[in-house]
């Protein structure tokens, strides 16, 4: 039942292989050629400049919005802080609810139909409703972000708790462990990797949620800036904003990977070695 990020090892593996030393030059070459063709196409009038801004203009826009006018920072700050706060709150809610439901079979049974309905509804679509109901401001934006990002941690925590290994459970019971000990020493640590997978999805969803919220509540944020630019037919700057989001998305991806290495250390060779020597030190010193 758990949901997982759609970034497969196969892809990451291929990516790493394709970005290896000599190959990266080839990739950059291809990329530059494509960009140049685009630029040329635009200059020669093959590409409609209304829709396809020139790469050179996009670069200029980057310069403008980041340095010359420096107007993007304010919006970036707004979006990112909102995403992080909403993500933390939403996933706390999700994990808490998931654990609660996971442990209580009665609640679980009664909640199931609602979960199915919630799962089938495009949750992001509730955004206009929430803004209308909760009014303008940070609250309704946060509510949207929480709504879109609570689900993955919820489902994954739930499945982590439910799918606890039978044999390990038997081991704990044979050692006469209490319910809280089983929860603390077995169920929660065991569920961490799958919860982390949910968290990664949640953070990505949070960014999308923030954007939709900003499309509707246009006071600030990258989403609203993109709208201003497209409205003004300034596609180059709209693209600069979108590429900014690509970078943020990439940072989220990498950041969550790091976090996973740190929290679910036992899944990774490097993490195991790090913790192994760390525990040795703490054991030997005192």
């Amino acid at each position: 039942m758990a949901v997982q990020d759609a970034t497969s090892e196969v892809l990451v593996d291929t990516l790493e292989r394709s970005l290896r030393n000599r190959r990266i030059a080839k990739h950059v070459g291809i990329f530059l050629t494509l960009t140049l063709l685009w630029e040329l196409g635009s200059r020669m009038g093959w590409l409609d400049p209304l829709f396809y801004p020139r790469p050179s203009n996009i670069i200029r826009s980057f310069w403008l919005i980041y340095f010359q006018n420096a107007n993007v920072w304010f919006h970036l700050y707004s979006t990112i802080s909102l995403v992080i706060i909403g993500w933390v709150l939403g996933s706390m809610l999700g994990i808490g609810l998931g654990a609660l439901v996971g442990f209580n079979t009665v609640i679980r049974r009664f909640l199931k139909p609602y979960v199915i309905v919630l799962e089938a509804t495009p949750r992001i679509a509730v955004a206009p409703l929430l803004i209308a109901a909760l009014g303008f401001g940070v609250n309704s934006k946060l509510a949207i972000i929480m709504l879109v990002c609570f689900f993955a941690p919820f489902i994954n925590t739930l499945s982590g708790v439910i799918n606890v290994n039978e044999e390990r459970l038997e081991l704990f019971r044979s050692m006469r462990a209490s319910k809280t000990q089983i929860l603390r020493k077995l169920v929660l640590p065991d569920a961490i990797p799958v919860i982390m997978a949910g968290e990664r999805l949640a953070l990505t969803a949070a960014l999308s949620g923030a954007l939709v919220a900003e499309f509707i509540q246009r006071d600030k944020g990258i989403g609203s800036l993109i709208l201003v630019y497209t409205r003004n037919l300034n596609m180059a700057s709209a693209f600069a904003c979108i590429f900014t989001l690509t970078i943020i998305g990439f940072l989220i991806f990498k950041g969550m990977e790091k976090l996973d290495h740190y929290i679910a250390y036992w899944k990774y060779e490097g993490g195991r070695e790090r913790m192994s020597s760390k525990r040795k030190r703490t054991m030997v010193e005192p």
Partner: protein
Amino acid sequence: MSVSDQPIPLSGRILDIGVRFLPHFVLFAVIIGAWEISVATGLITSIIIPRPSAIWSAIVELYITEGTIYRHFFITLTEAVVGFAIGAGVAVSLAIASSLWDPFRRYVTPYAVVLNVTPGIALTPVIIAWFGYGMGSKIALAAIISFFPIFVNTLTGLVQVDEDREELFNSLGASNVQVFRKLRAPAALPLMFAGFKIGLTTALIGAVVAEFAQATDGVGVLMSRFSFQLNMAASLATLLSMTVIGLILFYSMEFLDDRIVFWRRESRRAAASRARARTWAAQAKK
């Protein structure tokens, strides 16, 4: 790592369902009752949460007496399905090409990853600019954001085949085409369908979000209109139609998954087993 989710079984005899769901109905009735009373007594403002009875009359009006929802319903459904079909078609073709041809995979991967880390939602204004005001832009956004999970899952399924099975095929002297047709393709089906299910959900989100941004018809724009008129009851009734679309899409895919990837579930296996025995008997008679 790849995407997966387990199907929710939808079987059971009518009587059985009646008995099993009775407590659920009771609980549902209690919740609705409490809700109605708290709105009626002013405990909750009806602007934020309308009365269940108001929602019910909105449902009756939209779905039965006026029937206005259906046009929008089918438009959104079409957008999601066509978008999904295009996204899935491109994703599966690219995944097949990538699995067969390693250099291709290396050159496609970086772009697929870039597309993945960019929040698809952010492209909404640009997509509308590019594909215009008709259904095209909704379909395009649906296709773009459903592309990645399908691509990744299919590629993973095609590439990560069991090594022992691969060795078996090699030892039998199978050609590449045979390995693909008889091993890789069927082995990839379960993951591919898991990707399809996620892709369908995201396609619906894409269609609805694009409708929020701009549309003449569709449940997304209908919902915006209702919430603009502060008609929260009708707005929620429209949201319900999105849930229905979501459920229709999910269970249709579930149905296909169940028949095509029949070997995962006992009941389907037994049916397939009987069918093949019959075919054999028929052929033997000839």
